[in-house]
């Protein structure tokens, strides 16, 4: 846990430097070099289907993209610029309001320029995920470049 100070910086700056995350209400619950986890309490405006009372899958995608980014920064272990190259999300079950969404993301392969991540989202039971995702990110910062543009300072 030698990198705890950096994780603390990430945690503190997350909601303030990523306005949309504060707006949605995403709360980071775990952050270390192995994985990041977060909880998103559902709001009525997250519905995508009023009749069936289902949460819009776009909320889940946004949660995944955010937590993958945090998991990657924590995995790299220092401020850097990253960008999502692609995401593919499978919606395994409908998700319902009244229960939080929980997301866990991890980087399972990191190269000089590219990172591969996977993420799952569940409500009650981690063994019954509502979504799973594979994503590729690019490390866009150049060696020696100042890191302010990562947006997480």
């Amino acid at each position, binding site marked *: 846990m030698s990198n705890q100070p950096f994780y603390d910086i990430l945690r503190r700056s997350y909601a303030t430097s990523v306005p949309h995350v504060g707006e949605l209400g995403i709360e980071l619950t775990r952050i270390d070099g192995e994985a990041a986890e977060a909880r998103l309490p559902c709001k009525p405006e997250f519905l995508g289907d009023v009749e069936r009372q289902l949460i819009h899958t776009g909320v889940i995608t*946004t949660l995944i993209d955010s937590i993958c980014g945090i998991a990657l920064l924590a995995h790299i272990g220092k401020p850097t610029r990253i960008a999502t190259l692609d995401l593919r999300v499978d919606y395994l079950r409908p998700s319902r309001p009244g229960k939080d969404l929980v997301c866990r993301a991890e980087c399972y392969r990191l190269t000089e320029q590219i990172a591969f991540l996977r993420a799952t989202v569940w409500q009650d039971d981690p063994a019954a995920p509502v979504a799973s995702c594979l994503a590729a990110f690019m490390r866009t910062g150049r060696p020696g470049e100042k890191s302010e543009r990562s947006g997480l300072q």
Partner: protein
Amino acid sequence: MKMEEARRLAREQKDSAALLGLVPYAVYLGLHIDMADPAAPVLHLPFKKSLIGNSALPAIHGGVVASFMESAALMHLLLMLDEQRVPKSIDFSIDYLRSAHAEDSYASCAVERLGRRVAQVQIRCWQANPAKPVALARAHFLLAGDEPA
């Protein structure tokens, strides 16, 4: 309001408020539907500060771009098909080509395959320059078909 009535208003009077109201998250993002060409609606996401994902650039949150495009595909299906219920997302895949600046975004959709149960939709998102898309995406939706409402 019934979906049929909401769709009629959108198609005939170019008033899509009721149709968007069936998808609260689309309203939350602030989506508009431009029905100038009824055969090719353009989804419009006006910029607002709460959509920012990187305050240093600044850039719109990548997740917002994705959920805008997902919402665009859903609204496109509600407009163009005669579904009685909101289609369910099966999967969604997005390629980010450029960062989305702090400005308005637009999306257009094409249903490339429409089966009895599944629709495949291609989505293109751009900002000031339509020739330089911000992202391309595709999605599968499960249609309600004959399922009783």
